[in-house]
């Protein structure tokens, strides 16, 4: 590796955008610091709660013999779900040639990185013997869906991290060259991560080629990931999980919740980092229209997942569905189906809603929270409806509500996820500068969706 500083990091770069985006790296507002401190605090609380769990065993959770999987596994599925936004952006939008994607691709792919990190941690937090985790490698059985999960998630994590990293190389090289006042560790980090990028033609061609390959690879991997996560449940004989559509149903939910998550992130970054010129209503409009379509697909799978067995009402199924439709879990079930699916679907159908960032953030929040609660609704009621009746169960065994430790650990994981995401934006440009610049130069500001006042890039 050679570390000679060169000025031509990319053939063309929009200097105005560059300085606007770099502000978020060089300067952190008081609010921003407070935000990071808050996340750190919740994260540490989560770690302490996990320490308590390690010491005393899983008795500190509300899980018992009937509900042997609870909040942790629900959150695992949720994290896997929103991680799909990276594949949506990198593959689907790239393959369909949506030029407006550039200013938001990195935000999306960073969500994938951060959420997969915590998706991978959730099942470990759920383990009774985390000290034996290496047995998965020394005694692993490929016939077990858990091994499929490990392989699929690890592949997706490596793949999506490569895909996040590749287009970052030219931008990191720029940071290496321009951030002269950065601390020593930062400089070292940028120097190592920019792998001697000088922006030569050969390097550019190579990068383009790698990115093309990753586009083709990442989509099937992403679909595989959520399918095998669904199979974790679907490969059992349990009522409610024993369903042939569970795989595609989970994939549809994943892409929908991922798109909603990135819409929220876009609004937050736009405001916090003053990126109004680069993340515009155009991006919100386009992506919320896509979200509408994704929500429709998800509604279609919901109809299949609940409607089809509800028509037949097979004995065990009917007990489970009655619990969801009219029983103890009905308030939660209907709240999720109405607020997390029906209301967003109706709202997103209106152009006026899709033209308002405020409304879009509201609808997206409904969808993300709905997705989170839905995972809970998928995991817990099924565990409470085994084939043999629950009788004479000791106190606390016949019902489930997460304990304080479970809430703290889960909140800690959520805070950790947002923290990693925030710190990412403090280390690297949250908008891919060279790609956006190139796109503005080639297609014009309007097509890329940035403010038309953003001048054409200057060649250096």
């Amino acid at each position, binding site marked *: 590796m050679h570390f000679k500083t060169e000025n031509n990091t990319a053939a063309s770069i929009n200097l105005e955008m560059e300085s606007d985006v770099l502000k978020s790296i060089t300067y952190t507002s008081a609010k921003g610091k407070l935000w990071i401190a808050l996340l750190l605090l919740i994260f540490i609380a989560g770690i302490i709660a996990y320490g308590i769990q390690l010491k*005393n*065993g*899983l*008795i500190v*959770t509300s*899980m*018992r*013999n*009937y509900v*042997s*999987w609870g909040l942790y596994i629900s959150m695992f599925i949720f994290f896997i779900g929103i991680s799909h936004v990276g594949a949506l952006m990198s593959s689907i939008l790239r393959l369909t040639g949506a030029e407006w994607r550039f200013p938001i691709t990195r935000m999306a792919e960073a969500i994938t990185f951060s959420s997969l990190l915590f998706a991978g941690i959730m*099942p470990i937090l*759920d*383990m*009774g*013997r*985390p000290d*034996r*985790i290496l*047995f*998965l490698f020394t*005694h*692993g*059985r490929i*016939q*077990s*869906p*858990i*091994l499929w999960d490990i392989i699929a998630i690890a592949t997706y994590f490596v793949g999506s991290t490569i895909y996040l990293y590749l287009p970052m190389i030219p931008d990191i090289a720029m940071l290496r060259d321009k951030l002269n006042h950065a601390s020593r560790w930062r400089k070292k980090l940028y120097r190592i991560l920019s792998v001697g990028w000088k922006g030569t033609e050969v390097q550019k061609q190579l990068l383009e080629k790698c990115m093309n390959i990753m586009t083709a690879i990442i989509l099937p991997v992403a679909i595989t990931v959520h399918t095998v996560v669904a199979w*974790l*449940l679907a*490969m*059992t*004989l*349990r009522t409610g999980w024993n369903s042939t559509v569970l795989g595609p149903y989970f994939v549809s939910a994943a892409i929908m919740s991922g798109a909603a998550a990135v819409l929220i992130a876009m609004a937050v970054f736009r405001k916090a980092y003053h990126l109004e010129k680069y993340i515009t209503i155009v991006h919100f409009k386009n992506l919320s229209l896509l979200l509408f379509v994704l929500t429709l697909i998800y509604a279609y799978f919901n109809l299949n997942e609940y409607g089809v067995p509800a028509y037949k009402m097979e004995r065990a199924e009917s007990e489970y569905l009655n619990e969801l439709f009219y029983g103890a879990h009905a308030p939660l079930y209907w709240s999720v189906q109405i607020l997390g699916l029906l209301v967003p679907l109706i709202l997103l159908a209106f152009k006026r809603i899709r033209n308002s960032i405020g409304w879009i953030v509201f609808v997206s929040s409904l969808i993300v929270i709905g997705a989170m609660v839905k995972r809970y609704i998928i995991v817990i009621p099924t*565990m409470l409806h*085994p*084939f*043999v*009746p*629950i*009788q*004479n169960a*000791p106190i606390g*065994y016949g019902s489930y509500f997460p304990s304080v430790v479970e809430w703290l650990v889960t909140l800690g994981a959520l805070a950790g996820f947002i923290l990693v995401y925030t710190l990412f934006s403090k280390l690297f440009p949250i908008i891919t500068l060279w790609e956006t610049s190139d796109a503005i130069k080639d297609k014009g500001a309007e097509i890329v969706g940035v403010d038309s006042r953003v001048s054409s890039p200057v060649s250096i």
Partner: protein
Amino acid sequence: MQEEEENSRRSFLKAGLITGAAAIAAGVIGCNSDTKPPGSLTGKKVPLLDSAGNLIYVDEGQIPVHTNFKGITNEESRKGIPGKKFVMVIDLAKCDGCGKCTEACNKMHFLPKEKEWIQVLEMQDAPKEAPYFFPKPCFHCDDPPCTKVCPVDATFKREDGIVSVDIDRCIGCRFCMAACPYSVRVFNWTEPVKPDIIEETPSMERAFQSKKGCVEKCDFCSHMSRVDELPACVTGCPMDAIYFGDENEDAVTNKSGQTEKLSQMLEDRAAYRFMEELGTKPRVYYLPPVNRLYPKPNMNDAKS
């Protein structure tokens, strides 16, 4: 008169089968145990039943005598007891729901109240159908959904039909608990209370099998079968409702030592397996609760 004959025949069969089981078991496990090899003929004949149910007489000196089974390794207990195919039959007509099987099991395995390897449930399949008590051990399925999903081979099917758990291997993911359609498995949510006397065996065939963060369940008392004793629930059942035996020998025995020909019993009494439609092929058969000898459960009292 006829009854008397019947009785004497039965007790004779009982004696024969028990010895037979012992002899066959000991003969094949000889390699694992501290066994006295078959010595010189003593001239004393011992009656035995062969696998076809025929009476044969064998010289006492030809029967190897086992004295010690502490030498069973973990690998050997993973394979199971050679030549055996354990099976259980539960006569619902005899079960009065007293729960003594659970008590005996919990005592045998040092289990606290909230753990039940064998549960006695009160069942009624439809409002007009007869309610009945339903003792539910692990079914030791021949196509077990639990071992299928285990990521580390900590739970597995042995050659003798037993589905066993290796608590030194279990990572506590609880996938097997999610996969078991019969809610048989229990988890050690906290540090289990260890009994004062724990047998230190290298084998997983032992009475106390609890470890924090690991899954456990009924193991058909494999450590008892190793020494030709019946499982705790069988010997604990005052109603003689639970039979245990070897499918290869085609014989099952209950607490009183009544030994029945398995195939005949299953046929004559229209035995069934619980939720056959799930395709798990349980090794536990139920005899329907017809001509019951006890008051039926009051379903209004059943706690759910």
